[in-house]
């Protein structure tokens, strides 16, 4: 019988990242998937990135992940969202050629030492609450020290077209019922829901009357390591629903799986179905639909914005009421998926289950949504499996919520749990100004090693870091008096203080000042932009650091026997937890799932003011 260090079940974004990082650290790794040809399949929208999502993806990238690299290799259209705002929220988004992505991914995995097993896992084997292996339909029992489960939407998956229900993880794939039994027996689970729109034949769309959205080439890619995208870039198109569409949908809400009452589970508020949009925002004249090509050679289009679970006939009827889609033909209709997910509070901070040692869960099974969120969890679980098997040491600080979006995600999931599929937003991060895609190599510096990067990539990072140091040194050697700056039309206090170039940087406006001309030195504009924002946001890092310092300082604040359950400035959930776990001090309180740093600040603040102000 084979004996692995790690078996990863599921070969979606989470599974691939988990298996990949384990293999890079030298673990004997197997990846089980029901169907090899489904490896790296994008099950929903053909795009990667966006605000918040890119942020996680770029962290995965710098941790040694593959989603960005393969994404860039397969991209056929780029946009950068929020380009007019600071780089902390720039969100590059790439339209991905589905076939290319799966092909590139399969090629990559097959070239690695990961052992691909085409089989269905039906049981997790444990002894004394510790993993010993996996039981598969064909291969039977396979031994392993660690199992990472990344089953996505497959646990008890059901798909709905109107009143038509099928058991499936996604269209064309059976759901995992056996494994679901094991999970439901051992862990607290919940039922979540998501949806996907129909796929339309591109030849049946009248593009001539629609607004194109061309690809932007800003030289900004998903991956830190990508130098160029050589694929042909193609347009997306925009169209809109109209009153006629709305009427058709409204008249047929009883034929929607979600609205007829068949589906009771919680859907996603930020990924609403078209039924939801009409019910909640019925007064709008139209909702945008983005027609996204599925690939260079694909004859399908993904109409983003109209995910629904209506009866197939109604879907066709409403589609044909939309401008440009009057004669459209549908390949596969939209549907809703309902599946089991595990309450992520069943997990320890390292994504190992509390109940079974060496059993890790990652991806959509933990109640999240999105490729990038899944990838982030996959690499996180993988890295912690590596740490668990003592193949690497980890500076835990890199995954704290003030240092990374993955940290925010892990913290939110394991402490707060979820009520709807969890998606990353930049606003979830208290430390947003620091968690940028342009500085992820700094934030994860302690993790960057030759183990996870090939020579070229590793050298690139180090070259850039050295380069940046040099530039900062140079900037710091430039001296400016207030008078010098006045001459250059920069407003500063006339305090006679001599400022160096780095300090002056934050007074400049990147939209009007050309940094190169200003400092009269040759600097890579991209790098200088990064340094500029470092300089500008420094004061905020400082503030953030102070509040975290304050937390550390008050770590030993005694909380014994105080009924925090009833402190009025805390939310009910947090109070319930404080009451339940009765932390001895602030440090312990912070470790309880559900207790956010800001809740801790509330406690500190609260107690401090109470002591002085209240009679």
């Amino acid at each position: 019988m084979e004996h692995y260090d790690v078996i990863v079940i599921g070969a979606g974004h989470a599974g691939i990242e988990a298996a990949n990082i384990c293999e890079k650290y030298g673990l004997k790794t197997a990846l089980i998937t029901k169907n090899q040809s489904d490896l790296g399949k994008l099950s929903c929208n053909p795009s990667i990135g966006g605000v918040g999502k890119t942020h996680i993806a770029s962290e995965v990238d710098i941790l040694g992940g593959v989603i960005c690299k393969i994404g860039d290799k397969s991209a056929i259209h780029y946009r950068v969202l929020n380009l007019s705002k600071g780089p902390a929220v720039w969100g590059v988004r790439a339209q991905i050629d589905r076939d290319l992505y799966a092909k590139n991914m399969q090629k990559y995995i097959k070239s690695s030492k990961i052992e691909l097993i085409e089989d269905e896992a039906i049981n997790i084997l444990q002894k004394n609450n510790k993993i010993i292996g996996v039981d598969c339909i064909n291969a039977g029992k396979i031994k392993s020290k660690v199992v990472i489960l990344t089953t996505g939407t497959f646990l008890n998956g059901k798909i709905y077209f109107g009143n038509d229900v099928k058991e499936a993880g996604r269209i064309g794939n059976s759901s995992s019922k056996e494994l679901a039994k094991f999970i439901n027996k051992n862990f607290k689970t919940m039922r979540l829901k998501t949806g996907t729109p129909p796929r339309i034949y591109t030849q049946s769309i009248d593009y001539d009357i629609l607004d194109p959205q061309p690809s932007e080439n800003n030289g900004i890619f998903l991956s830190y390591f990508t130098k160029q995208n050589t694929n042909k870039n193609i347009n997306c198109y925009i169209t809109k629903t109209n009153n006629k569409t709305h009427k058709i949908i409204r008249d047929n809400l009883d034929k929607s799986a979600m609205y007829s009452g068949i589906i009771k589970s919680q859907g996603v508020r930020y990924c609403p179905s078209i039924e939801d949009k009409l019910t909640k925002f019925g007064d709008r004249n139209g909702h945008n639909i983005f027609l996204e090509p599925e690939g260079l050679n694909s004859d399908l289009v993904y109409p983003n914005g109209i995910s629904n679970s209506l009866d197939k006939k109604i879907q066709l009827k409403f589609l044909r009421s939309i401008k440009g889609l009057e004669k459209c033909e549908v390949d596969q209709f939209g549907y809703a998926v309902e599946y089991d997910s595990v309450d992520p509070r069943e997990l320890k901070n390292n994504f190992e289950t509390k109940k079974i040692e060496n059993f890790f869960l990652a991806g959509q099974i933990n109640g999240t949504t999105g490729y990038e969120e899944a990838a982030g969890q996959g690499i996180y679980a993988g890295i912690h499996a590596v740490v668990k098997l003592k193949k690497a040491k980890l500076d835990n600080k890199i995954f704290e919520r003030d240092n990374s979006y993955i940290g925010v995600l892990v913290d939110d999931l394991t402490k707060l749990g979820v009520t709807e599929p969890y998606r990353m937003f930049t606003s979830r991060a208290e430390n947003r100004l620091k968690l940028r895609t342009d500085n992820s190599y700094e934030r994860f510096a302690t993790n960057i090693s030759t183990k996870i990067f090939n020579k070229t990539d590793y050298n690139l990072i180090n070259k850039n870091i050295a380069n940046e140091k040099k530039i900062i040194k140079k900037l710091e050697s430039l001296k400016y008096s207030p008078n010098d700056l006045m001459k250059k039309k920069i407003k500063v206090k006339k305090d006679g203080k001599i400022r160096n170039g780095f300090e002056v940087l934050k007074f400049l406006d990147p939209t009007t000042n050309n940094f190169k001309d200003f400092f009269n030195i040759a600097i890579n504009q991209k790098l200088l932009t990064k340094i500029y924002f470092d300089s500008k946001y420094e004061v905020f890092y400082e503030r953030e650091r102070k509040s975290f310092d304050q937390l550390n300082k008050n770590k030993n604040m005694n909380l014994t026997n105080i009924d925090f359950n009833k402190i009025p400035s805390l939310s009910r959930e947090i109070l319930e937890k404080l009451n339940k776990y009765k932390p001895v001090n602030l440090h312990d309180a912070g470790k309880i799932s559900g207790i956010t740093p800001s809740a801790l600040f509330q406690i500190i603040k609260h107690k401090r003011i109470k002591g002085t102000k209240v009679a």
Partner: protein
Amino acid sequence: MFNTGTIYSNFTPLVKSPVIGYRISGEDVLLILKKLTKRNFFKDHSIMKLVELHNIDGTILDKCNVVYFKSPNSFTGEDVCEIFIHGSPLIASQLEQLFKDFNIPGLRLAQKGEFSFRSVLNNKYSLKQAKAINLIINNESFSSLEYNKKILFEGDSVSGLAPLREDIVNLFSEITASIDFVDDEEFNFKKIMKKARGFFNCCNKLLHKNRTKIEQKNICRVMLIGPVNVGKSTLFNKIIDKDRAIVTEIKGTTRDILSNQIIVDGKKFEIFDTAGQRSKQGRIEKFGYKKAQKLSKEIDHFFILKDKKTKNRDLNQLYKDFDINKNFTIIETKSDKFSYKSKNIKINHNLNREDLFKRINLSRIYKKYIAHKNHILEFNLSEIEFLEKILEYERDILNEKDILIIAQLMRNILDDFSYEFGYINNEDVYDRVFSNFCIGK
């Protein structure tokens, strides 16, 4: 930092008085009562009982009333008892010694504010309400007393800050949406900044309006003036219902200004008695008269007293000496000795206090000078301080072009609101985002 344990404290001053009250709160209350009274109070809650308090040696310390409030139906939410001993500070000190002698672990004298603290901890009051209690006790003005009472009795939502909380959550939601959901809806930076400006304007307006309100006096100052020996001090004593001013038949008895505050129909007055006007004033008398003249600038209303002997010349002198401008009432004293008819208010010695107040009608005077300026407040002092703190962000936010920095500063404001009103978390913000904007594809 406050700790656990059963706490006790006197809630009346420890001075000789009819009664001295003690309050005990915590889990050992029943045990203490048992030791103290040799009886079980478990079932006798919320009822006042006359009992004997025993010393450890069995002798009687005092015989007095005791009430036991069973958790959670008490001020602090814990077991509480209140003991009303006879008002001897000596008995009080014996009682406190007794508490020490009981040797109950954790039983101790309460720190300042500890009872309120526990009532907040146990959700008997919101933080805002607890603050309101403090403000009520230390209150100087009736309008803010009413406001604080309203918060105490009706809860946080009556606070003038409540709408601002709504505004800031909405504003922050829009900023959040404009960053995180840029794809989904049209967001306009200028419009957002306009709303931010609107928010701060609103804060400024409220602050300004209420600060002047709070600074405004809400006490009506009435000065009694008139020729000597016309009966000013008699009237003064009658109004304040005390024998403060010395009353004699001798002219110039009152030489300095006397003043006293009274409350009539819930309205606050300060009444001034002054030295009388006459041509031959003594040195001290003259000094007192001058002082009254000076003070007259701050007086809302004058009662000019006259009697049969008063001549027009005397009155004219008064008009000249004092800063009077139609804000006066002429009161004819000793009116039993008057015969002719006039519109002036007439009073005499025999008038009882109630009838006197009917005639001089202080409420009307109050309304004329004070009441119209004094609408019910929307804020208390701590909320004003809070507003000032919020406004410290105004310049930084309105001058900032980077929406991310604006969002960061807004988050600080949101945290401040969290503290004032209870926790606002990300989910609250997202709730607002998803109900206000059509987000997502």
